[in-house]
């Protein structure tokens, strides 16, 4: 979480992007100079299926307010099937987080192809706004990691 001068809540968004589609899509939105908020920080993974639920919880522990996972569209996975596993894993994980009363809008999976720079930017804009509305992550925070 960061607070800028006018004290508007600035959420910290961690985005896991698969190397082949979504990271390239993020690059394309850069190449096309499509703005999205600085709140979003991207971590490159080979495939969305590399993302362990532990990474997502870790991000929340360390102060992330939202975590988004981007991968190739189903059927387009560079590794054939990775994103299908991602889809099941994340559906169940998000459902569990929801079950524990963690706000649903803090987590998202989005499929962004290498050609969808515009979609990437739009998704990030939209997701950041959604998280901004929720305010700081309280339900999955680790007070020890809170910034003084």
């Amino acid at each position, binding site marked *: 979480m960061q607070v800028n001068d006018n004290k508007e809540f600035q959420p910290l968004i961690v985005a896991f992007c698969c190397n082949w589609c979504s990271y390239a899509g993020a690059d394309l939105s850069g190449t096309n100079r499509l703005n999205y908020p600085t709140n979003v920080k991207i971590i490159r993974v080979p495939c969305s299926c590399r993302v362990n639920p532990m990474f997502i919880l870790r991000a929340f522990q360390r102060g992330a307010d939202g975590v988004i996972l981007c991968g190739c569209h189903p*059927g387009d996975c560079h590794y054939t099937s990775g994103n299908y596993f991602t889809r099941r894993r994340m559906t*169940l994980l998000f459902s569990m987080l929801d079950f524990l009363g963690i706000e*649903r809008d803090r987590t998202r*999976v989005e499929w962004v192809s290498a050609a969808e720079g515009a979609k990437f930017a739009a998704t990030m804009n939209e997701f950041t706004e959604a998280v901004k509305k929720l305010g700081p992550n309280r*339900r999955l925070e680790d*007070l020890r990691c809170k910034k003084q």
Partner: protein
Amino acid sequence: MQEAMINKAKQLLADGTVNRVIGWKKGEFVYDITPAIFETAEELDADFVYNEFTAANVSKYLVKESKKEGKILAFLKPCDTYSLNQLTKEHRVNRDNIYVVGIPGGPKLDAEKIKAKGITGITGIKNENYTLKIETVYGEQTMPFYEAISDKCASCKSKKHVTYDELIGEDGDVLESNRFDMVEKLENMTAQERYDFWRAELSKCIRCNACRNVCPACTCEKCVFDNPESGVENKAASNSFEENMFHIIRAFHVAGRCTDCGECSRVCPQNIPLHLLNRKFIKDINSLYGEYQAGEDTTTKAPLNAYTTDDCEASIVHERGVE
């Protein structure tokens, strides 16, 4: 039943089919029964017990025992056979070294439920026509049998043995159970209510690891939470995050593998309804990916190791139910 089991065990020991028996050993009171290994007829006669308090699932012990020399006789209740099957599927036990005698299951009683009625100083318990007559140092007390039934048996999913070499008594059927009722109730709460519910429950956690160590699905050579290399090692439930983290990840790791044997909640010293986390996953899996019962067989792919191209998107979580 106990008599028949002891006789069966003696017979199998005598004819050399097995060289050990895993079962239950009586304790100081009527209810403090310990899983134990018996090697002789004398030991069986002296200590073997099977009654309303033999709730412990012994299948996890077979991970180690089945790797030892010689065959072991395991008396398994229907629910325990699911655990064994799942372990067989995951190559954690050597099924060839186990002689399974299927025995009728519960309902098992939970001594804590009797004590929760304020009954204390218990010296004996008898079931007479589904009324428990409890002898105590403060005099005899009674309570309805069903009120003492353990949670795991109260929502029994199956009376069917999914693997056995021999049965004592008749095999039962898979039951229509009410096991998802509480999950559903929680699902219908608001997010805030769910959050409050789980905070209250999980904050009780003392991280004794009983749930993990008893769980027949948690047989990792080294648990990530014990492994300093894993980066997520944690020993104490230092704060609400770590309480959540441990239980979410543990439930996730057994998702699609948990047979819903109920041991986690049975052993939790803090009475946290941990099985609800597992059941939430089971319920989701059933509704999103088709009915799946872990341990039902030894061949099908676990739902998290499989997919279909038209699985629902993760956004289904956002679309349904109560926020």
